[in-house]
């Protein structure tokens, strides 16, 4: 009924193979056999290609090479190396504007790098090739090892080597107790300490023994870790396929309903369906930002909060919600994060007859930490069409070098500096236009002026009067759903636990051998072995030794010197 697998099944740990310069004696049999199967580390496939094995041979060789540790190691290095450009060059995914600018500034190099995918590293085919190969290699290596480990966990510990004194931890003592009694006590102690135990009766001609093994969780943890890595990859793929991300700017007093058209930018995954957008809506009642005043960090942001009235779904009761930077709005299976803010000056334009032709708050985009903001007010309903382009400054200042700029992010002394343009806004050209940029082709500048809240400006050509009524704040929200998120968290926590088990637990074996000695005493030998560099079985061998029924103890101890 022995289901003990052939000890030669698992090959040597390559770490054991003495490398040329290390003066290590050839492995002695006793320990070598005893140490087998203490690790399911894969066999290093011979690196040389088959000479004439035909297609099948080549495939097999390719597969073995791909799933070898050395290939995994190289792929790991490549993966690290490949992510470096992603941190040096601006990336389309996170900073599309910077990418355009970079390419404009360095056209030739920029286009070349772009073709290489340097601005889209983490979505580039070569990056994907590396991690997919790595994960194929991982699966190809880990799954067979899992099967092997499964067999090992269910098998019995290997028999005690004949010569225990060759093992690194070794105790020898003499006892008055019956040999079988010593073995029974040892087995009992080991079982009580949760070792897996196998025994051979004392009546065996070669002497009886107890063999025990512990720490299978090391391998289990290691396998769990690697499988969890596959789980993380799966989660990331799921998220980028079925999730979406959108950014929306909402002014105080305005509302947002969760439809694709209302987003300022929207990036759906390939498998995302617009119908999956949850039908919530919210109004930004007020936004508040506070900044550090004085000191070295003058003007640094301190507190952002947005008060919303949220309607979770049509017909539902509206609720008041406060959203802060680390506290997103959670609604309908998505989260809305507060990611930015700024000012939107309110401008009224009256034509020569005093009729209001435009009145709205227009989002201006902050350009620096003091919220010097730029924007364009487009007034299409006058003839010719009118545009106001310029700055909103929450704390206005002008100097010769910087021109109009803001000196503090809060609205201590707000003003707008506007240039008026007339002509054709080009809205009918069919070309998509940015609301933040003015296409001045086909327009003429007719004047500039600075306005404080409440002030009006009659344009030099007398065609209209512009009033700066005041301003509201706006906040931007990033709305995202990532269906792979929970799986990613689960897999990474599992990975971490597996990793800890793999690195902190050590697989170890102990053996007890009894032999009749001269004068009727029982000679007891206890020995232990581990493969982990950071562990030792000395304490356990010691404890086991002490638990044995020893009456006369002339114990000799071999513990290797602390190298």
């Amino acid at each position, binding site marked *: 009924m022995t289901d003990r697998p052939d000890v030669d099944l698992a090959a040597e740990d390559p770490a054991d193979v003495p490398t040329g310069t290390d003066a*290590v004696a050839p*492995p002695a049999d006793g320990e070598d056999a005893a140490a087998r199967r203490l690790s399911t580390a894969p066999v290093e496939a011979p690196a040389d290609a088959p000479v004439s094995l035909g297609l099948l041979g080549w495939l097999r060789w390719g597969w073995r090479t791909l799933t070898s540790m050395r290939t995994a190691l190289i792929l790991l290095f490549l993966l*690290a190396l490949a992510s470096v450009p992603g941190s040096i060059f601006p990336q389309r995914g996170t900073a599309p504007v910077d990418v355009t600018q970079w390419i404009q500034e360095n056209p030739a190099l920029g286009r070349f790098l772009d073709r290489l995918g340097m601005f889209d590293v983490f979505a580039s085919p070569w990056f994907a090739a590396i991690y997919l190969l790595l994960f194929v290699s991982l699966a190809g290596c880990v799954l067979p090892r899992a099967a092997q480990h499964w067999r090992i966990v269910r098998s019995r510990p290997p028999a005690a080597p004949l010569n225990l004194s060759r093992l690194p931890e070794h105790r020898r003592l003499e006892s008055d107790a019956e040999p079988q009694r010593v073995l029974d006590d040892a087995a009992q102690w080991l079982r009580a300490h949760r070792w897996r135990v196998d025994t051979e009766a004392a009546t065996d001609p070669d002497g009886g023994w107890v063999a025990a093994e512990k720490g299978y969780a090391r391998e289990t943890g290691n396998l769990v870790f690697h499988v969890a890595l596959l789980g993380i990859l799966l989660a990331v793929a799921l998220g980028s396929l079925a999730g979406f991300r959108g950014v929306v700017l909402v002014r105080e007093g305005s509302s947002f309903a969760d439809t694709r058209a209302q987003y300022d930018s929207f990036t759906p995954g390939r498998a995302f369906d617009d119908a999956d957008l949850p039908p919530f809506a919210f109004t930004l009642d007020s936004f508040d930002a506070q900044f550090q005043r004085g000191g070295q960090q003058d003007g640094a942001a*301190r507190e952002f909060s947005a008060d919303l009235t949220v309607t979770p779904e049509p017909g539902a009761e509206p609720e008041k919600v406060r959203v802060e930077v*680390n506290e997103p709005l959670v609604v309908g299976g998505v989260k809305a994060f507060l990611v930015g803010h700024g000012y939107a000056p309110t401008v009224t334009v009256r034509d020569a007859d005093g009729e209001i032709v435009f009145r709205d708050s227009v989002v201006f985009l902050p350009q620096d930490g003091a919220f010097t903001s730029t924007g364009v007010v487009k007034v299409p309903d006058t003839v010719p069409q009118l545009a106001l382009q310029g700055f909103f400054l929450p704390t206005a200042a002008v100097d010769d070098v910087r021109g109009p700029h803001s000196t503090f992010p809060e609205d201590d002394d707000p003003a707008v500096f506007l240039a008026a343009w007339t002509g054709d806004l080009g809205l009918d050209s069919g070309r998509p236009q940015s609301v933040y940029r003015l296409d001045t082709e086909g327009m003429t500048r007719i004047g500039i002026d600075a306005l404080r809240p409440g002030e009006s400006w009659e344009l030099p050509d007398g065609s209209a009067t512009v009033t700066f009524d005041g301003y509201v704040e706006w906040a931007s929200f990033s709305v995202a759903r990532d269906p792979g998120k929970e799986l990613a968290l689960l897999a990474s926590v599992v990975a971490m636990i597996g990793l800890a088990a793999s690195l902190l637990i050590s697989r170890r074996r102990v053996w007890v051998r009894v032999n009749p000695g001269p004068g009727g005493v029982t000679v007891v030998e206890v020995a232990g072995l*581990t493969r982990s560099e950071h562990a030792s079985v000395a304490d356990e061998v010691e404890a086991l030794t002490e638990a044995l029924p020893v009456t006369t103890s002339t114990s000799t101890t071999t513990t290797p010197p602390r*190298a």
Partner: protein
Amino acid sequence: MSVDTTLAQASNGLVYASMVAYTVSMIGFAASFASTKGRDLTPAATAQGVAADAESGGVAVVTRTDLGGPDDGALPPGRRAANIATSVMWLATILLGAGILMRGLSVHRMPLGNMYEFSLASGFAVALTYLVISLRRDVRWLGIFVVIPVLLTLGLAVTVLYTEAAQLVPALKSYWLVIHVSAAVICAGAFSISAAASSLYLVADTGERRAAAGQPYWLAGLARRLPESTRLDGMAYRIIAFMFPLWTFAIIAGAIWAENAWGRYWGWDPKETWAFITWVAYAAYLHARATAGWKGRRAAYVALVAFATFLFNYFGVNILLPGLHSYGGV
């Protein structure tokens, strides 16, 4: 909440006091180092441990490498100076810890919000890691190589990186941040010590090889004062093996924080990218050690590359590469 400037000043005073104490400690370690005779680098002396192994079965993997021990033999004289230096280092580290605590109290938050605070904390973590190891092992030979980097870190912190005590920018107000950064600081401390051990390993190993070949070596004086190379190698490995799960945890905590602050758990921001690179590099080291049999020099180079990526993530990324992880006042 406002900043308590008295406490903030007390914190600065304590940090300076700790630097004075570290300097004294450094002198002590240097004196100890200089007056140590050192060991014989020739193979006969060095191979002793290996030979003993061979006797007991001959497989080097099962060697119980130790961080040090009373049977060290490397430094009989100079111990007194090293002992004094260690005590002064305890004092310095307590002062530094108090300085960090005051800083936290002055701003009513964990003092881990900008590079200055992070540097203080890393210096503290490095020193404490060393001192904790020194409780259990004789690592006096390592002292000088720990105190000097700690002093450099603190010097950089109080000059280039100094930031007045202040509240945090909103994105940093999260307890996940505290968890994430604390874990990263502990890793910084431990990885630094491991890198010191790896570098010293390379010196000791070269020293032993050259001595065996009868060649001169310009760092022989240093090599002689170090423990055997195998021990240094083992020490470097063990620290990384213990810390790698924590580094993994630090990255996971960071991802949870990023999810809370920006709505995505991973966005290949430069900081995230370099944390990933460091993680992969250390994983490569563990693989190299565990299975490819890359013990010794090649593994040490991998470990040093991994540590370099860790350092770059801290200094290089914060200063050179723009990203969302901007700290208040670099």
